[in-house]
């Protein structure tokens, strides 16, 4: 006798898994393989349908009380495979367009002049003596080669020197001479262009990008004035994802402590921001429509401030969709909402299937949606303080779902990350909220912004202290890749079973 809320709605999960697997296979191989996979999936799906209709001539809509049967499996499997088959065709379409691109046929080492519209900040890669090299992605506007011009056509990645490039903002149109190279990663970039000289700027960037760039710059200045160097580099990274000032030592510490997800712009920042705005709107007794407008405006402002790069957009979707589902009380629709969001993102940007950050955020959000609220209530039932229960439940749920992936990617297994995440959980809310207030006040009333930043000094110090301490602790190192994933999954499931037993 279980109420409907007891059900976990996993109807879309097989479809998401199949589509993700198809995307990984499709991106790593070529488009004929995708088409073949689509045909195979379609055939198996039709077979599964036949199994289903063979076993039950009358198909009744499901109720909560039906048990698991072959025919249910057949329907679920056939639906998932049909979706995966169509998805495979769509990936094949894109792969074919990529393979047929004129730049792909120009060959390695060809010297071209490109006009590119940047889509992200240049990120420093490594230091060669006095020259910092940086990597930046852009949308190709035109390519000149041998007296011909090719207009449009896809994303490119540029390997650029620091001089003249590091200060550019997204949306800036530049022209540069480059040497063509094969794209090294499977993410639908057409080419890797190597540039050795400063770019020629064509026109200014769009006004909203310039405003966002100015706000970020000013916020970084204010934090530099108000805080110690380490904290000053960390605050913009935590609040709006501006990692340009973050010291390398802090980045390494955070990575070792399992806290990197804090500085990567994630749905967590956005969901905190949105919930604060929502509460303010509620406190100001705004009507429902005005509340929705305020939330949308807040989301738009955040996306512009944190740079509307694809990673920020997917983080926004990842954070907002389940949060809305949870906040409006429709807990049992949170997981289908997450699955739907993942499917839409995969259709629009299939390259996300190979993106580690995306995989981690999906895993963390899935853990949050499926496990965390359950455990939080169990802990509260045992008279744990509410905030502590929430912190522990969230940290543990995220650990269980992301540790196999982290072990596979980085070869490090650190169960201590649960403790570090709990220890800093309470401070993150405060830092993010106060930091966002300070960012909002940056141009409006600078002294107030500086004062707000001072308030974050102590929580930031605590955060750095915890990160530094846990980075010093030894972590188990496992071979990365598949073996690491298995080991991580084993550890996570041991933890899961132990938690359930309590």
């Amino acid at each position, binding site marked *: 006798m279980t109420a409907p809320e*007891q059900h976990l709605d996993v109807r879309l999960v097989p479809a998401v898994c199949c589509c993700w697997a198809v995307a990984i296979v499709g991106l790593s191989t070529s488009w004929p393989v995708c088409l073949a996979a689509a045909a195979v999936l379609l055939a198996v799906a039709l077979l599964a349908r036949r199994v289903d209709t063979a076993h039950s001539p009358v198909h009744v809509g499901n109720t909560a009380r039906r048990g698991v049967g072959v025919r249910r499996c057949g329907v679920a499997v056939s639906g998932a495979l049909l979706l995966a088959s169509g998805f495979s065709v769509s990936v094949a379409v894109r792969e074919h367009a990529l393979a047929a691109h004129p730049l792909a046929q120009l060959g390695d080492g060809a010297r071209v002049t490109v006009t590119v519209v940047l889509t992200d900040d240049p990120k420093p890669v490594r230091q060669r003596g006095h020259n910092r090299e940086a990597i930046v992605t852009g949308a190709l506007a035109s390519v000149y080669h041998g007296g*011909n011009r090719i207009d449009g056509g896809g994303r490119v990645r540029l390997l650029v020197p620091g001089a003249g490039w590091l200060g550019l903002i997204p949306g800036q149109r530049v022209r540069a001479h480059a040497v063509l190279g094969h794209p090294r990663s499977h993410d639908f970039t057409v080419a890797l262009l190597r540039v050795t000289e400063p770019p020629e700027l064509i026109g200014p960037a769009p006004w909203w990008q310039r405003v966002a760039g100015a706000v970020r710059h000013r916020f970084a200045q204010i934090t530099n004035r108000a805080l110690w160097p380490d904290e000053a580099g960390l605050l913009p990274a935590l609040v709006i994802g501006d990692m340009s000032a973050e010291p390398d030592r802090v980045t390494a510490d955070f990575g070792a402590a399992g806290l990197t997800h804090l500085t990567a712009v994630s749905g967590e920042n956005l969901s905190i921001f949105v919930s604060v705005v929502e509460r303010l709107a509620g406190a100001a007794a705004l009507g429902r429509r005005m509340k929705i407008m305020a939330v949308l405006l807040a989301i738009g402002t955040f996306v512009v401030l944190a740079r509307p790069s694809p990673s920020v957009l997917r983080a926004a979707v990842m954070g907002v969709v389940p949060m809305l589902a949870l906040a409006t009380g429709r807990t049992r629709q949170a997981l289908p909402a997450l699955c739907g969001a993942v499917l839409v993102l995969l259709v629009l940007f299939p390259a996300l299937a190979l993106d580690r950050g995306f995989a981690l955020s999906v895993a963390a959000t899935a853990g949050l949606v499926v496990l965390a609220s359950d455990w939080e209530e169990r802990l509260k*039932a045992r008279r744990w303080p509410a905030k502590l229960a929430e912190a522990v439940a969230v940290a543990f749920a995220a650990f269980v779902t992301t540790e196999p992936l982290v072990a596979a990617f980085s070869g490090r297994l650190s169960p201590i990350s649960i403790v570090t995440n709990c220890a800093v959980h309470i401070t993150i809310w405060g830092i993010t909220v106060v930091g966002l207030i300070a960012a909002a006040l940056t141009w409006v009333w600078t002294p107030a912004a500086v004062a707000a930043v001072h308030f974050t000094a102590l929580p930031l110090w605590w955060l750095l202290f915890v990160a530094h301490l846990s980075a010093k602790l030894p972590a188990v190192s496992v071979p990365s890749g598949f073996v690491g994933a298995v080991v991580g999954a084993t550890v996570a499931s041991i933890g899961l079973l132990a938690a359930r037993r309590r």
Partner: protein
Amino acid sequence: MAALNDNQPPWYSESAPRPLPRRAFPRLRFDPGRRGVAAMIVLSISAVLVSECMVQCDRPEPHSVPALPQPHQPGGTAAREPGGGPPAQIARTVAAPQELIVSVVGLVQHPGLVHVAAGARVTDALAAAGGPVAGADLLSLNLAQRLSDGDQILLGAAAAAATGVASSVNSGSAGGGSRPAAPSGPVNLNTATEQQLDALPGVGPATAAAIVAWRRSNGRFTDLDQLREIQGIGPAKLARLRPLVKV
């Protein structure tokens, strides 16, 4: 028994008897039903359509253009129709004005300035000048060579080809044509020989051969910046060559 949820008043959780926790593993609902499968079919078809749309929006369009955009260039002529397929097979346009003025001197019927169409060759200029007179040396002349504006064709005597005045084509404002010597003005990238290119400072035999190879596969140079596409010519070298070459 109903599970605890957020709508309960705070005192409820403190004093009410604690309900049993939920099942160890929640019941899974994974059957989408016929409607679910139909929805998935619709979603999969729309995924294909969306991909196709995005690919079409981002489709590269090859054009052939007169020249790279430079502030001092005159407004380019309209680009030709874009051709399909790889850019190497697309026809080139010529940027120069429609007509060339060429000086034909020596053993021709009507020596002087002749107007020929853009893209004309030496033979066309000779015909416009009335053709060679008897005894003119045509052996030293490449009759198929394309002309550029301001060239001079000197037609010498055949008997004196070995020792005296031989025919030659000098480009631009080069000095007297008594010898097929290297012109003292800027080297025309489109008509210079490999030796003349090699003679440029900073350009060796390999780079000269690369320039000639580029010319052969891509046609005329229309802009000095196209030299950047040659292996071995970087920004510094181009800056050094700029006063010494022309197109």
